């Protein structure tokens, strides 16, 4: 029973983490629900939440929908020869460290020498060029775009694995019945990988609620002002820059509640999904 001894630290670790963050009041002074009261009146929390929502919506559209289409296209027999090549390329950003990617994008978004503005000038849209990260209207979206660029390949890969498990007989039968490619995509591919779609959608939404690295590096913690801040960044700032550990823990509780609710919803949904069959 060696494993129990090895397992205890792990369990303890989680128990400890549960205990500690639900004890949101700092150990020194008990403030009750004050942190939460402050939190609900804090405008920054609202901004952060909106940004997290934007993240979620945009990511679901891009990751889950475009990722799925890409996967389906790459799995199509006519692309068989080139698919491995594209797969590796699309997957490449996933393995690159997020700090490298964010630094790279800070070059791309640079108003004077950035690739993006220069590219716009090159194709004659120079008047669209702007300091992408410097304006509070564009900053959140510029930051979100980076995550799309990075992780579409990851989601695509999950779909590819799922699609590969679909028995090819189904497609052959549909082809004989005269179903076109688009028809086959909607009536075979999507129903067959329903489970995966649930899982990836949940992954993206949960991920959107936890975004930290991109705004932290690209806009130096949610700038300009607080326009591109997210919940995690705000938690980090409250805890480690403003030294309000209790408040930061309260934020962490909010994050946990959101993600836990999402997890439960997903479990429910995927269960009912199976019963439908």
């Amino acid at each position, binding site marked *: 029973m*060696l*494993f129990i001894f*090895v*397992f205890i*630290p*792990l*369990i303890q670790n*989680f128990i*400890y983490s549960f205990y*500690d*963050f639900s004890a949101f009041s700092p150990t020194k002074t008990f403030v009750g629900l004050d942190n939460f009261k402050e939190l609900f009146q804090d405008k920054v929390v609202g901004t952060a939440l909106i940004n997290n929502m934007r993240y979620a919506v945009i990511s679901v559209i891009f990751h889950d929908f475009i990722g799925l289409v*890409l996967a389906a*296209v790459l799995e199509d027999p*006519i692309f068989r020869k*080139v698919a491995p090549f*594209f797969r*590796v*390329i*699309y*997957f*490449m*950003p996933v*393995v*690159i*460290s*997020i*700090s490298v990617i964010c*630094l*790279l994008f800070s*070059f791309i978004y640079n108003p*004077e*020498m950035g*690739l993006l503005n*220069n590219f716009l000038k090159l194709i004659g849209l120079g008047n669209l060029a702007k300091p992408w990260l410097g304006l509070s209207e564009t900053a959140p979206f510029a930051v979100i775009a980076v995550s799309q*660029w990075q992780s579409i390949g990851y989601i695509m*890969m*999950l779909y590819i*694995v799922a699609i590969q498990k679909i028995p090819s007989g189904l497609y052959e039968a549909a082809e004989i019945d005269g179903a076109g*490619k688009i028809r086959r995509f909607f009536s075979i591919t999507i129903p067959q990988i329903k489970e995966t779609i649930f*899982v*990836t959608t949940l*992954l993206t939404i949960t991920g959107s609620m*936890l975004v*930290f*690295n991109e705004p*932290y*590096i690209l806009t130096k913690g949610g700038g300009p002002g607080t326009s591109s801040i997210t919940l*995690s960044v705000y*938690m*980090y700032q409250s*805890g*480690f820059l403003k030294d309000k550990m209790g408040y*930061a*823990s309260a934020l*962490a*509780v909010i994050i*946990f509640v959101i*993600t*836990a609710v999402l*997890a439960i919803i997903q479990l429910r949904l995927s269960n009912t999904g199976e019963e439908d069959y």
Partner: protein
Amino acid sequence: MVKAKKHRSYRDRFGIGGSITFVILILWAMAIIYPLFWMVMSSMKSYNEIYSKVWSLPEKWLISNYSVAWEKGISNYFVNSIIVTAFTVVGVVVIASLCAYGLSRYKSKGIDIALMLCMAGMMVNPQVCLIPLYVLLQKFGILNTRLALILPYIAYRLPLSVLLIRSYFLDIPKGIEESARMDGCSSFGIYSKIFMPMSKPIIFTTIVLTSYYAWNEFLFSIVFIDSDRLKTIPSGLMTFRDALQTDWGVLLAGMVISTLPMIILLIALQKHLVRGTSEGAIKG
């Protein structure tokens, strides 16, 4: 010429729709490759060239940028990252495989609970535990040491790794184990002489996934490590940027250096990485 021919033959088979999709695929691939290519190219330029000639190849290939970057601190971060990654990987593989062994071979209430905890562990995310972990590490007095990264990394990789390895262990036939026991093999002997060698593929996947995680982790490494000497690559690059100011060529060279190991790993081990990431996520 050869290219043009190839293209035509594709078009014949695809029809118009296929060609359009193909063009879109290439455009998206360009959108991914070009920034990376630009990064490599500009890492050999001087500041003025990066600034004024964005698109062109470097006039003088300043390979020296790389040696400057290496000497100015990247080497240090690189070594730290290797140490942290290596210890994390060893820790995860040893602990996770032992846990998985226990979880796959015995049946009791305790085991079910342990499994549940494992699943629950995957749901807990690092952001939520950041502050309690910080306090905990402070109490242990290991904040700002390499252990402050290694221990949390191991803990966060365990649930996923245990489940992955366990699902593989479950497929190992009972008969092999029984005959080994007949020959007087101990539980530990069965684990080390039969299970581990038979599970090389999944152990390999675990190693790849864990090293990828430990190499790129950012949040813990900026919070738990203060001293520049101990920083890993992702957090070190931030310091690097601030220290270099406008020495962009050197900064870009540093970025390339820190990216290379993972790209090489990806190209060398495509299959394992892909299978691992997907299995991990689906089980999650």
